[in-house]
């Protein structure tokens, strides 16, 4: 089996093949013998030439992370053929930017009206969850094109609250 695995920003090529007493593993051309078991869901016990590692898998709606000890790595498994297609447009200062609810909660109040000009970092909407009121801030300087949040409404993570252009 061949995988292309992105850890952080680095692309690794991983080949795995069943072998006596475990797996033959070839990572970026480097060959190691490994043994792996899953003692419980989302936990992997990995032995690499005598070294023992416990790796925890954490998956959210959008990301996959591997925790090796206390160190967390963002991981992506990718189809090698579509490598070029995935260029992130993050950090783009031009064009409209959506403001998303970062957690489930309730909209308490709006701090600006539609079509008002805002600075980067200016509070747009106040969302309350777990007794804390959190100001959701504008990611950029611009004009608030649309506010879809209404005070009192419940929101889920990833819901679009407003759009700043």
């Amino acid at each position: 089996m061949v995988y292309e695995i992105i850890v952080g920003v680095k692309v690794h090529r991983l080949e795995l093949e069943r072998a006596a007493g475990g797996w033959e593993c070839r990572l970026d051309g480097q060959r190691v013998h490994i043994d792996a078991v899953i003692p419980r869901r989302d936990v992997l016990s990995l032995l690499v030439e005598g070294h023992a590692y416990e790796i925890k898998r954490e998956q959210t709606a959008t990301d996959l992370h591997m925790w090796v000890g206390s160190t967390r790595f963002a991981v992506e498994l990718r189809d090698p053929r579509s490598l070029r297609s995935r260029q992130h447009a993050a950090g783009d200062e031009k064009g409209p930017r959506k403001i998303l609810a970062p957690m489930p909660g309730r909209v308490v109040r709006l701090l600006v009206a539609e079509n008002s000009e805002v600075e980067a970092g200016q509070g747009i909407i106040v969302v309350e969850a777990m007794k804390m009121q959190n100001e959701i801030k504008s990611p950029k300087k611009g004009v608030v094109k649309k506010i879809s949040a209404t005070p009192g409404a419940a929101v889920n993570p990833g819901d679009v609250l407003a759009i700043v252009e």
Partner: protein
Amino acid sequence: MFKKILIANRGEIAVRVIRACREMGIRTVAVYSDVDRAALHVRKSDEAYPIGPAPASDSYLRMDKILDVAKRSGAEAIHPGYGFLSENAKFAQACADAGVKFIGPTPHSMNLMGSKTSARQQMEKAGVPFVPGTSRGLASADEGEQVAERIGYPVMLKAAAGGGGKGMRLVHTRQELRSSLESAQSEAQRSFGDSEVYIEKAIVNPRHIEMQVLADEHGNTVWLGERECSIQRRHQKVLEEAPSPIVDPDMRRRMGEVAVKVAQAANYTNAGTVEFLVDQQKNFYFLEMNTRLQVEHPVTELTTGLDLVHLQIRIASGEKLPFKQSDVAIRGHAIECRIYAEDPDNNYFPSPGKITVLLQPSGPGIRRDSGMYEGWNVPMDYDPLLAKLIGYGTDRQQAIMRLERALYEYFVAGIKTNISLFQRILCDADFQAGKLDTGYLDRLLAKGNQAVASNAPEKERATLEMIAAIAAGMFTVLDPASAASKDKEGNTTGPAADPSNWKQKGRSEGLR
């Protein structure tokens, strides 16, 4: 002794009290809101009754419903935990009127201490040192500006009924005062149903050190040592320890004696905490008295060897304190980490949701008071405190090492927690040197995440990265079906669910 106690709370503290009751052979009655049917405190209790919808104001704050359950179940006493109704004198009075013992101080003492303004007035009379400011609520923003001008900026605005940092604002200049006062008042109104806000001179970079007291109903009051609570964020405590790194036996005795004086001035009974601000010259000022069991009570339990909940129950049942002040000895060192459901990568926003994986530490010198379990859905309606991890050792250094080890074992997935924050704090040089004040955590956080990134040396990190890559592949090979497929709500579906992209990808890769 009581035969049955109702616990008017939820989360880890309800579980903590239920455990004490079981140890003492007392039956327990839990109450729960609609979203807490599957909560741990309900599972651990002997009896449980629903008390209404999710919002606390419709359930955990409903005195009538809770007293009704007490009556129906035949509970003789109510333990209020912390938060909710724990410092509500009206509730304590309603309990007394209903013939149910409230495990805590009398309504009279609570009224006196519950309002921070009347507490100040009382302490002025008793000659207790306190911070300059007003001893009553501000009538107007104009008055606030005048007082602030007199005592000098920066000033602190505080809700008279407050606690936990709610309704509290630090004001640096006259320009900020008006809007800060308005928001403090509105937050106080929402959180406590009382918009009274008063003003105090802000002591720059103080330490926050508190003294545990215990008083029986026969006139005996003792102090049980201090807790250092300077590590806070948004006025919310994050990590506490006992003893404080800067308090020596003489200072401890002096603080303890003032705390006992405070308690006696209020005819205080049961467990209480006297909070002090400590300036850079180690002068201490009375801040307020918390008329409840504190979140951080375990560090005092570990360093004194006492069980505060057992003692609370025994005091409430009319027993005398079973020891004298001279019997109290502080031994070893304990540090508590408050594990919150919040996202360190997203400005510590609350992070409710389903806990998909939970690996919990144990072993020597580790105590874990938890209200969570794997598969539980953390509701968004309450405080984000999930659990408390407490490390105990012969000395501070050993307590730190044990906690670091336990945090390494602790793993929570599905929701975000602040576990990584404690790993940063515990290895920080200032923390290890005991150089703490209430601005400490903001300064640490301002340094950004480099501290964590550089945790592992470069070469070791490269190795770990390779391990992560191999693990990702092995997970896919060995366990493709449970590779956490997601429905639209972001909930993880079980292993029997539709084949995920992972599985399909794994298969297509395998076919190549």
